């Protein structure tokens, strides 16, 4: 969408949020480092199978998740992803 078009027709705005189906996975990636959360029952299953209770990924290493967050914060993905949790729903609605 060109700048001319936006000036002439301000109602033709670009959508500022992500599609609904994108929100949860992206928020999880930023908050957990992975798409699914690791629930306690699965940790127990891992243990019974003889593998480490926590996988050696961001599930175990909080600093890895922090590094990912730093990288994502450099892009506008971060703002879009955390939109649903902000207290500015009123602005969204009207």
């Amino acid at each position, binding site marked *: *969408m060109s700048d*001319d*078009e936006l000036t*002439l027709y301000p109602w*033709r705005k*670009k*959508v500022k949020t*992500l*599609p609904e*189906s994108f929100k949860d996975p992206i928020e999880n990636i930023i908050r957990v480092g992975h798409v699914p959360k690791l629930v306690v029952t699965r940790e127990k299953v891992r243990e019974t199978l003889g593998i480490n209770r926590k996988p050696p990924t961001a599930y175990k290493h909080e600093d890895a998740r922090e590094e990912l967050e730093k990288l994502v914060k450099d892009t506008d993905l971060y703002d879009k992803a955390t939109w649903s949790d902000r207290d500015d729903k009123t602005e969204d609605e009207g």
Partner: protein
Amino acid sequence: MSDDFLKQKVLVYNPEKCSGCYYCMISCSFYHFEEADLDKAYIRIYPDANDPTSFINAHCTHCEHPICEAACPTEPKAIKRDPDTGIVTIDRLRCIGCKSCNFACPISVPIFEKALGISYKCDFCDGDPRCAKYCSTGALQVVSRKEAKETMEAKSDE
């Protein structure tokens, strides 16, 4: 056909490789509207009515002499073909939403968008079509018109 014309890029679709994931449509609608909405995609994939395990598609071929451009009644034309790249686009500021192009195109590529009151069509994503770039199986590819012609001729000889 001139050499310059044959060098221009177009999309080719290989139904034998298509898995029907529709990701091309999702990436298209996201690129243009930031939505994951099949109805807003500039490219269309449909299940083949005769064989449900196969798919067929409809995408803009950016014709040498676009019938949509010819049908466009505005002056100057809202639909224009770039002579260098061969890309046919609708200028959304000039489009009056008369739908002439929708009916003129033999494969109904231009689609009327109710919310904006204008028609839209494939703009080749400024030379880097997202549908082909992100195609899950490689069924959609960007090739030169020459390669596309040869591929299609080879297919029709089979």
